[in-house]
């Protein structure tokens, strides 16, 4: 513990003023800026290579402080998603035809190409409202509502948190809880688990909308270590139950020896899939635990932000994330901030590449690459500056690369050597502007 240095100047000044003015009690000062609203806005472009997903979004967060550190936050995000995403089927040496989720038309993928479904041009709007306020001198609380809307998915959520300071505000302990109810209304309906992809017009494999409930809890401790170092440690728990499957993804049904997808021929005059595909199915429950730690360290003007997160869940996925940022001031009004992030995850226990014809179906199966075994690296640079009017702007450019591998025991016959994890390269560009009105 640091020894008590000489009494601070303001304490001595307060005592001297008391002697000067006489000991009549004076109410402690309550003053604050009335900044109106503080706006934090950002325009984002996210684009993957090979005609895959592209996203453009506008994000606005407005915050207004009131007397006593109470604050109201309003957030709005609008984004539009275009581009194609892997539909879960494996490559073949011949062209493959798939029925679109709507069931009203088909699309064909050339030979030896990773099947991508480009049906989706989706626009999403998300809103949030939050209120935070102190309770007494050492406690703080917040509550919030969130909602997001897209044509096939709706989310509504409620969250709250409580925190308390200890040790002259050197330690803060906090707890938070969030619950959400999300509903799916997939285009064409929700597929029955492992149902076959049908010809155009076929509906027997689909049912109505589905939903899921999510509960998140976070417990954290923030600790001031020294004048220059602050650390945080959080434990999070998350449980999702309900419909957790991706209604648009399939698995290829393959021959047990060759590993090639079983072919089929649609009836005359009807368009439909050229091979046998089965809709995926995931468990209806998922529990995740995470341990997250972050440190901020001030080094003579530069600030290092380092964090590590470990996640494990009951789908057998384990992941590690290391995130490093260094904010480097340039001149009096600007800074550069290089950024590096390393991520690795191990695959879900029901992750597989294909389903084998003639064998018993597994309880659950998905070939969604996002449940697979991969590493990802993000490298980026941000440049920010303060305008003469006191507002802040910044631009950042980052590259995100995912490289994965398919566990050898999942590959059968001709798949070996032909099937590879669909590596991802994406660029992230963001322009942000913070101002007050």
């Amino acid at each position, binding site marked *: 513990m640091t020894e008590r240095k000489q009494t*601070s*100047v*303001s304490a*001595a*000044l*307060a005592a*001297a*003023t008391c*002697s*000067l*003015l*006489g000991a*009549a009690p*004076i*109410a*402690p*000062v*309550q*003053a*604050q*800026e*009335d*900044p109106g609203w503080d706006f934090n806005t950002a325009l984002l472009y996210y684009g993957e290579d090979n005609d895959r997903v592209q996203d453009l979004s506008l994000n606005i967060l407005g915050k207004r402080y*009131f*007397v006593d550190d109470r604050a109201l936050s309003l957030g709005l995000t609008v984004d539009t998603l275009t581009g194609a995403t892997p539909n879960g089927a494996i490559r073949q040496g011949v062209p493959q035809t798939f029925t679109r989720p709507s069931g009203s038309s088909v699309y064909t993928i050339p030979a030896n190409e990773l099947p991508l479904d480009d049906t989706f041009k989706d626009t999403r709007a998300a809103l949030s409202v939050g209120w935070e306020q102190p309770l007494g001198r050492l406690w703080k609380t917040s509550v919030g509502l969130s909602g997001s809307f897209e044509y096939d998915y709706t989310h509504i959520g409620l969250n709250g948190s409580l925190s308390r300071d200890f040790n002259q505000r050197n330690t803060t302990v906090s707890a938070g809880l969030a619950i959400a109810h999300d509903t799916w209304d997939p285009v064409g309906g929700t597929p029955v688990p492992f149902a076959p992809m049908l010809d155009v017009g076929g509906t027997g494999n689909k049912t109505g909308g589905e939903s899921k409930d999510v509960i998140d809890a976070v417990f954290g401790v923030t600790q001031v270590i020294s004048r220059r170092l602050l650390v945080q440690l959080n434990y999070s728990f998350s449980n999702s139950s309900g419909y957790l499957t991706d209604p648009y993804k399939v698995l290829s049904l393959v021959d047990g020896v060759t590993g090639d997808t079983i072919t089929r021929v649609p009836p005359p005059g009807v368009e439909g899939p050229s091979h046998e595909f089965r809709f995926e199915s995931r468990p209806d429950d998922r529990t995740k635990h995470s341990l997250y730690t972050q440190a901020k360290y001030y080094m003579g003007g530069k600030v290092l932000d380092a964090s590590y997160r470990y996640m494990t869940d009951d789908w057998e996925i384990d992941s590690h994330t290391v995130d490093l940022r260094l904010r480097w001031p340039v001149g009096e009004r600007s800074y550069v901030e290089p950024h590096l992030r390393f991520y690795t995850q191990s695959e879900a226990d029901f992750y597989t590449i294909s389903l084998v014809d003639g064998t018993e179906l597994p309880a659950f199966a998905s070939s969604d690459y996002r449940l697979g075994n991969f590493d990802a690296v993000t490298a980026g640079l941000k440049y920010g500056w303060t*305008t*003469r*009017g*006191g*507002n802040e702007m910044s631009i950042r450019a980052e590259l995100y690369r995912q490289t994965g591998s398919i566990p050898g025991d999942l590959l059968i016959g001709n798949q070996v050597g032909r099937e590879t994890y669909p590596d991802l390269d994406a660029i992230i560009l963001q322009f942000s502007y913070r101002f*007050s009105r």
Partner: protein
Amino acid sequence: MERRPVRQVSVEAGQDCLVGHFDAMASPCEILIESDDRAEAARLTKLAAGEAWRIEDKFSRYLAGNIVARMNSARGNAITVDDETASLLDFADTLHTLSKGRFDITSGVLREVWTFDGGDGLPDPQAVKDVLQRVGWDRVTWRRPVLTLQAGMEIDLGGIGKEYAVDRVAGRLREAGTCSALVNFGGDLAVTRAPRQRQAWRVGIEPVSAANNECNETVLEIATGALATSGDSRRYLQKDGIRYSHILDPRSGWPVERAPRSVTVAADTCTEAGMLSTLAMLEGYNAEAFLDGEGAMYWCRR
């Protein structure tokens, strides 16, 4: 000899309040009163003006015959001062120690060599050295209630006077009435008690540079407490590209280096706020770090 402004008091309607006006200590003074009772507002304003003028008459260095004039013309003789003056001298003594000599009520004589008129007339270094012989609280013998000043030295309470007056006036208004009032002497202000019909009093902090086109005037909401500003928007010298602020370091006789253009501090009393902003200015380039370290609420412009 300064021409004294006419001493009169007036009351006008403000935004949801009544405003009493008068001039004191070379500043326009206003008392914002949360009341619609004109008679009461007039009574309180007269009370406030009376106290402000009393302090001005007693401690102004421009008036002959008051305690300051007597101290400054004693030519080395001991002077016995009254309680109020003694308390101010004790306070100045504490501040001299707290600021490690940067705050010094004997530094007023430096105005003989420095004229901050926006021009480039820097004084001759030898002249500054000569005047510095007559500066230094350490050279003063102060044993309450007796003060002994060497010949040629002067006491100047200008650095504490206005904020002290604001707090005294606020104290009188607190005792004299029950409504909330905001005492504003040209930007140094204090609130007597929390307002009842509104969340807080709203005051603006003037941006310093007119050249700043995007200047957003900062609006403050103050429910209790006080504000004081130290600034040099008009009083400075500029030569060879260097701006010399009017805040002089009494230990060297030269302006403090790289002082901010203005510092506004919020504190429980106007005296504390004023002293913190003055001490911050005296820290020069270290002003913000000093205020951060003190946990002060402040707005600094460079």
